[in-house]
């Protein structure tokens, strides 16, 4: 079976929102935004709001992590997929489950108690760093970038 055509995977607390819908999707040329998130997969309200945000002609799917792992191999070659996940731990689960993710864009990880700000819009705790390290060791390319027109920030900041 052909490998699914995953153009990019993004970590973003806010999942599909303005930056993702208006900037990232058109820049990478995806026609399917796959939100891999357990909570949203069971929350119709959030799904409907995100469907509204998606650009015209771009399909959306809201799968749990396990469903994403189970189904990704059935993707059609015509489906140019943009995966959006909430946390590095979720992305690690996908990769360990066999989802062929090559590159991860780190967008918004909000500041909260116990986290430290390491880049303009990225705050991490030790568990996040461990997940990133594991992803890197599995050969996944990491990139910190808020929107396509902003510069890439140094990934070493994650591990400092």
């Amino acid at each position: 079976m052909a490998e699914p055509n995953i153009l990019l995977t993004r970590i973003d607390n806010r999942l599909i929102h303005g930056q993702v819908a208006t900037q990232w999707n058109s820049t990478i040329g995806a026609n399917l935004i796959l939100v891999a998130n357990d909570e949203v997969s069971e929350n119709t309200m959030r799904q409907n709001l995100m469907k509204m945000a998606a650009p015209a002609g771009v399909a959306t799917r809201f799968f749990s992590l396990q469903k994403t792992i189970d189904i990704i191999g059935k993707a059609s070659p015509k489906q140019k997929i943009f995966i959006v996940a909430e946390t590095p731990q979720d992305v690690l689960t996908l990769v360990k489950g066999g989802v062929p993710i090559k590159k991860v864009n780190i967008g918004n990880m909000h500041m909260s108690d116990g986290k430290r700000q390491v880049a303009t819009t990225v705050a991490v705790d030790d568990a996040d760093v461990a997940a990133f390290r594991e992803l890197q060791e599995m050969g996944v390319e990491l990139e910190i970038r808020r929107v396509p027109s902003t510069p890439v920030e140094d990934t070493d900041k994650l591990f400092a």
Partner: protein
Amino acid sequence: MIGFILTGHGQFANGLKSAIDMVAGDQPAFEIVPFEGSAAASYGDDLRAAITAMRAECEGVIVFVDLLGGTPFNQSMMIAGDIDNVEIVTGTNLPMLIELLLTRSGASGLADLAEQAVGVGQAGVTHKSLASLADDAEDDFDEDGI
């Protein structure tokens, strides 16, 4: 490249620009000229200088103003009478600018781009309710694929 000038009453231009920075990042050939009461006397000259400078850099300029008939609009129209390839768009909103900043590099012409701005800006004004959301929720699944 077609250059963009954004102008409006009070902090309209500053505020809209900060929203664009957040969603789309910093943009080239995009300047703001706020119209504030404290600097009202020099506003016309400031706007003319900004449009002239942008026009010198770009093949054409669109001036995005907040309000049809307001001072930013009136001043822009008079300046556009003196400088060629300057178009004015009114009722500027965030969806309009986000879309146009993405599409301007492939635009076929200045007037077409200004028309596109109007269409996108109008399409961005909607009334949504939870009930209509559920109705719209159908998604086309391909026969193959996920």
